[in-house]
């Protein structure tokens, strides 16, 4: 049976993706996602092995035990407001990047912006650079 440490779970769906028996059920709405771990008698430990947060462990089967469910609020993008990730995932990325990258002039504010807005920012930056290059000699 799967035991979940709710303080370590990132809410990433990795376990649900690798489970060969559909024992880990995912549900996602516009602003929330939840994961439900069914009671499982399998000896398989794929979910434990492939959990990025090391939140899962296997414990002996106990029929009295309740099936765990975790629900995460999705974080809203700082620019467009679209809900795009769980907070523990973003915190983990913030922590996994090396110090010298964190000292960048823009800092790590981009982590709190959704991928769609990140692409738009990059397009705007490239455009500004090109327009600036054209107008430099002829202001």
């Amino acid at each position: 049976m799967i035991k979940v440490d709710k303080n370590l779970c990132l809410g990433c769906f990795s376990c649900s993706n690798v489970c060969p028996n559909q024992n880990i059920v995912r549900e996602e709405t516009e602003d929330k996602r939840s994961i439900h771990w069914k009671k499982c008698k399998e000896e398989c430990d794929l979910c434990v092995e492939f959990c990025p947060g090391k939140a899962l462990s296997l414990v002996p089967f106990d029929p009295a035990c309740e099936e765990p469910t975790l629900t995460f609020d999705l974080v809203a993008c700082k620019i467009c407001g679209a809900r795009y990730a769980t907070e523990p995932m973003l915190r983990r990325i913030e922590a996994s990047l090396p110090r010298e990258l964190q000292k960048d002039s823009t800092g790590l504010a981009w982590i709190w912006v959704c991928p769609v807005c990140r692409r738009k920012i990059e397009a705007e930056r490239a455009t500004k650079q090109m327009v600036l290059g054209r107008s430099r000699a002829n202001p």
Partner: protein
Amino acid sequence: MPVYVDISRCIGCRSCEVACKRVHGGKGHVNVHMAGDRASVPIFCHHCEEATCTMACFSGALYKDGERTAFAVEKCTGCGLCRLACPFGVVWTDKLAHKCDLCQGRETPTCVVTCPANALSTDFEAASKRARTRAALVAAYGGRV
């Protein structure tokens, strides 16, 4: 051998997007963004030297292979950390992750071959020479060239 973009040549036809989708089974890794009426900018993987997606990937599916940021699909668990770790938003997760692989197995990436405006190239020397020539012309004659 990353792909270099000359956005002043891009005509916004999205041929690169379509070509990329065609060779990657319907999942494209190029996004042409329209910056108002000033420019169109194809956005795709930069193959960063210090790739934050590879730092975030816990299963080793994303890794640096020379200049390329490579992806081993069989190791991916679809956790989505790489998608959130890319500063340019060019890694997608759609059950499993997918991103630009510079068309592994092809001589030249298909977006470069397809681009009708020659805005994309893999030749750093040519791309850089063109940019320098343009800058010199602007300095010499001023205005648009």
